[in-house]
């Protein structure tokens, strides 16, 4: 039934090249990447550092110039989608503006969109409820823990109801306990909002636990080396990690790295 859903993101023969500033060599950050992502799908982009997973995410978000190939998002170019403000991005660190309270941080994208004030206030409250920070709206970023800050980042990304949520190793700096909790929160939010999510990570367990499909990237040059379907039952809980299937899938994903 998933197959019948329309294609949200289509990447064809995408290449991204840099010139090494020291010796003038051409570095292939991404080479001939092909990928189709369906609406509402949870995709994990998995790979070691330097495999171009962040570059791929940034290329989709139109924050990175591409060299050749094409990306289409909902039948449009990434630039068009960006200019229509339909991306929500969560970065490696929360990127909260420390002169703004939690509420005003979440509010920021809506200010850029020119959403009327009354509506903004309503939406901020809704978003803070979604991420479980109802009582922290008036706090400033430095008064929150790392996990809470990242939740604010997620709330901010979702505030403008983006078509696509791009997450770049959002939990990599957090401790295991916080991470587990945020995984469950993220799955709940994903189910409630039905967004297409691209989630960059270098953690195999994290990728398998969260995603519908794990896209394995390998470095030098950055390319897709495998795509693994994750058929773990939904909704997933921490118990899912104890099932034999989870272990099998983790092994399967790990195998795809062998020989890289």
């Amino acid at each position: 039934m998933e197959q019948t859903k329309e294609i949200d993101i289509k990447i064809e023969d995408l290449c991204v090249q840099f010139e090494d500033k020291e010796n003038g060599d051409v570095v292939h950050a991404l080479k001939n990447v092909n990928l189709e992502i369906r609406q509402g799908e949870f995709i994990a982009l998995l790979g070691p550092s330097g495999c171009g997973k962040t570059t791929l995410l940034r290329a989709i978000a139109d924050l990175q110039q591409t060299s050749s190939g094409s990306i289409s998002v909902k039948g449009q170019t990434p630039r068009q989608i960006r200019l229509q403000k339909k991306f929500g991005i969560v970065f490696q660190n929360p990127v909260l503006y420390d002169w703004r309270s939690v509420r005003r941080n979440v509010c920021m994208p809506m200010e850029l969109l020119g959403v009327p004030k009354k509506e903004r206030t309503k939406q901020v409250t809704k978003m803070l409820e979604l991420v479980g920070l109802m009582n922290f709206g008036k706090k400033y970023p430095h008064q929150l823990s790392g996990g809470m800050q990242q939740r604010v980042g997620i709330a901010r990304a979702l505030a403008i109801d983006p078509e696509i949520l791009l997450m770049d190793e959002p939990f990599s700096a957090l401790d295991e306990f916080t991470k587990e909790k945020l995984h469950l929160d993220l799955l709940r939010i994903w189910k409630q909002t039905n967004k297409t999510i691209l989630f960059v990570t270098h953690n195999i367990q994290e990728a398998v636990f969260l995603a519908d499909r794990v896209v394995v990237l390998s470095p030098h040059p950055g390319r897709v080396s495998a795509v693994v379907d994750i058929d773990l039952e939904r909704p997933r809980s921490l118990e899912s990690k104890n099932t034999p299937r989870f272990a099998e899938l983790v092994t399967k994903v790990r195998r795809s790295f062998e020989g890289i």
Partner: protein
Amino acid sequence: MKKLRDKEKLTSILYPVIFGVVFCILWQTEVLHLLIGADTFTLPVPTRIIGILIDNFAVIMGHVKATLTVALIGLVAGSIFGYFLAIIATLFPKWGVGGLTIASAFNAIPIIAIAPILNNLTKDVSKDPNTRSMVAKILVVMICCTVSMSINAFRGFTEVKPFSEDLLKSYAASKKTIFMKLRIPNSLPYVFIALRISVPGSVIAALVSEYFAEFIIGVGRMIRENIVLAQYASAWAYISVACVIGISMYILLLAAEGILLKGRK
């Protein structure tokens, strides 16, 4: 925890106050004079200095007004100009960075060197010697304040947290929006770093530039005039007034910082 912090706060005020009081007692009882081998002619006791302050209050306030006018106008004008330079340097980074390096070289020129030059350059500005002296003195203060503001504000505009520009770009924010929503608020703590240098600096620059000014007015000038005439008690009175000006301006700055940077780490 809170109690401990309150205690720390209290002692951090209390200890310097106790030290000051003890110092004044030693000074007043002339023990200090014995310790450093001074006499009461060159170092009059506090009560005598206070007596002079009271007796000449109106005259002294006239000089305070002149010094404050120079310091404040120079501080405000110099800081605004410096902030403006930083904006230009941020918009045109190719030229801006080099420009600011040259500007920082100005910072190395001692006030004593630029004050007489500016006196000379401004001698045709006005027929009134007081006005043209004011202009020269304000320009000295301005130069001192412009540099620290331009360098610090530039850092505030450019040293933004990683990805914070990307965040705005991902919402298709214009250059202007990035300036308004990110760079300007980010620069505010840096503005205060600059002001912490410039506020005491503006008072010092005002006092020193008065030494060289054509028209005889101001707290700094009075320190010099009285020392030349060997009126040490009066000189000390003006020195203490100069201290009060500098300290109160700094306290005002800290208060403003506390209000405007509330909530930031």
